[in-house]
């Protein structure tokens, strides 16, 4: 019997387990998935939790219910990967050999990378919303906060879901309007980028929205430290931004397991071929989702498209065929803009987000890079799709793993 081992039962790992168990069956193959956690979180929900749009039970389920019965689930911490010996060392000292390894250990916040971020004001006036705990603590804070300077901040790129902090700023604007206290809140969006986003057309559209909503933008801000006493953030150039409430996206890093195993780069991301998803250093190791270093968005939609392509490549690898360089960096993201509206962007390595219609060229019903209620409905419906379609590895009709250029208005 041959072993496929998947590390991590989050979005990417769970989808791979569901794809592969249809293809590689007993008794020839044993698929094992390892994750020490009990719960599977719908991470996009962390954005809505602080504003009481979602409640905790909307976004938390068990890991078990999404893992197929013929896939073995091991709930244990992983001590080390030994890629030269094709084996995994678990925390209890036992070892697990593999023929094929799939790394899907994700990315997480590392506030300790920035001086003073996890200081005396952490979860008092300095919050993250990239963890369940952080998001919930922020909800409790926002319920009682009586206004002042709200600073929404990105520490450094890359981060998971790079549009989430923008969405947070938009939703905050909408939230305070509904509470009839928008005049008491000054919102500033602070980013290390030169503008609201990394791609020119989307940046233009998003900066227009920031302006329209009275959100001030501070670009090119590379944070050096958080001053807990003065309640301000200071950048390396000496620029200072005061806050009453700081909502920050700390540095994101891959899992420490990569550091322990000597398999990560300086942010613990695994060097990966951007079109085949094979690891650069080991032929029988594949990487998908946030754990890899490929220049695509760290987002669930990317993991979903990768999973379809990686499944085929793993089957090619099993049959001794050459891998297909098929992954194009396709990402598809809803951007909540507040007041019951949202934008949709669809892009890949080479094509930036532009206006158009999706998924049917010229018809829609969704509009690209334009605010609409339909897009917002799409974002809300997505939670159902995530739990019921996406994790199970079911193909989403009309949305292909590689990006379509049809219906898009490229200049």
């Amino acid at each position, binding site marked *: 019997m041959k072993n496929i081992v998947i590390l991590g039962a989050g979005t990417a790992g769970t989808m791979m387990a569901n794809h592969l168990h249809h293809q590689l069956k007993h008794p020839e193959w044993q698929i094992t998935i390892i994750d020490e956690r009990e719960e599977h979180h719908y991470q996009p929900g962390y954005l809505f939790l602080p504003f009481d749009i979602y409640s905790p039970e909307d976004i938390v389920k068990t890991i078990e219910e999404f893992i197929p019965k013929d896939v073995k689930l091991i709930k244990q911490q992983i001590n080390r990967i030994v890629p030269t010996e094709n084996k995994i060392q678990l925390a209890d000292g036992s070892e697990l050999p593999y023929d094929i390894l799939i790394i899907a250990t994700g990315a997480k916040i590392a506030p300790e990378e920035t001086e003073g971020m996890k200081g005396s004001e952490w979860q008092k006036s300095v919050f993250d919303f990239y963890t369940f705990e952080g998001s919930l603590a922020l909800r409790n804070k926002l319920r009682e906060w009586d206004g002042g300077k709200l600073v929404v901040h990105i520490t450094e790129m890359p981060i998971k879901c790079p549009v989430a902090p923008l969405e947070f700023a938009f939703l905050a604007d909408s939230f305070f309007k509904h509470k009839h206290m928008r005049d008491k809140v000054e919102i500033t969006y602070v980013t*290390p980028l030169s503008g609201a986003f990394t791609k020119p057309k989307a940046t233009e559209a998003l900066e227009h929205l920031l302006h329209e909503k009275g959100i001030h933008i501070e670009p*090119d801000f590379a944070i050096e430290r958080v001053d807990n006493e003065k309640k301000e953030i200071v950048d390396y150039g000496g620029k200072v931004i005061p806050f009453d409430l700081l909502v920050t996206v700390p540095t994101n890093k891959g899992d420490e397991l990569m550091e322990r195993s000597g398999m990560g780069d*300086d942010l613990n991301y695994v060097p990966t071929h951007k079109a085949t998803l094979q690891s650069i250093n080991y032929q029988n190791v594949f990487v998908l989702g946030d754990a890899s270093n490929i220049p695509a968005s760290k987002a669930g939609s990317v993991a979903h498209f990768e999973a379809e392509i990686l499944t085929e490549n793993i089957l090619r690898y099993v049959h001794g065929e050459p891998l297909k360089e098929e992954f194009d960096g396709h990402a598809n993201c809803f951007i909540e803009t507040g007041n019951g509206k949202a934008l949709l962007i669809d892009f890949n390595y080479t094509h930036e987000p532009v206006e158009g219609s999706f998924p049917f060229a010229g018809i829609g019903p969704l509009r690209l890079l334009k605010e609409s209620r339909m897009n917002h409905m799409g974002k809300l419906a997505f939670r159902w799709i995530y739990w019921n379609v996406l994790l199970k590895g079911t193909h989403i009709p009309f949305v292909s793993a590689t990006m379509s250029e049809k219906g898009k208005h490229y200049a």
Partner: protein
Amino acid sequence: MEKIIAGKNITVNEEGYLTDFNQWDEKVGEAIAAEANVPLSPRHWEILKYLQDEHKNQVALSIRRIGKSGVTDIKEFYQLFPVAPLKTATKIAGIPKPASCI
């Protein structure tokens, strides 16, 4: 698009970054630096050379990596190139603007 820098016809993109490093020389670097109000000292040149070497070796540049480079630290990098240092320094060095992954 074409732009005359230091008396030479140079191909740049819409943000002013050179698209062909072969067209770069120190005079071109100085002219771009002057336009960005960065007077170049020997220390600036050490860092520009480092950036060019890293680019040649296909290393993805980031502020974090420069902080750990041993060539300079982030504090000094900001003192030398006060406004958006990595973007300014790469433009002067004639190499592409570092891609921030999204």
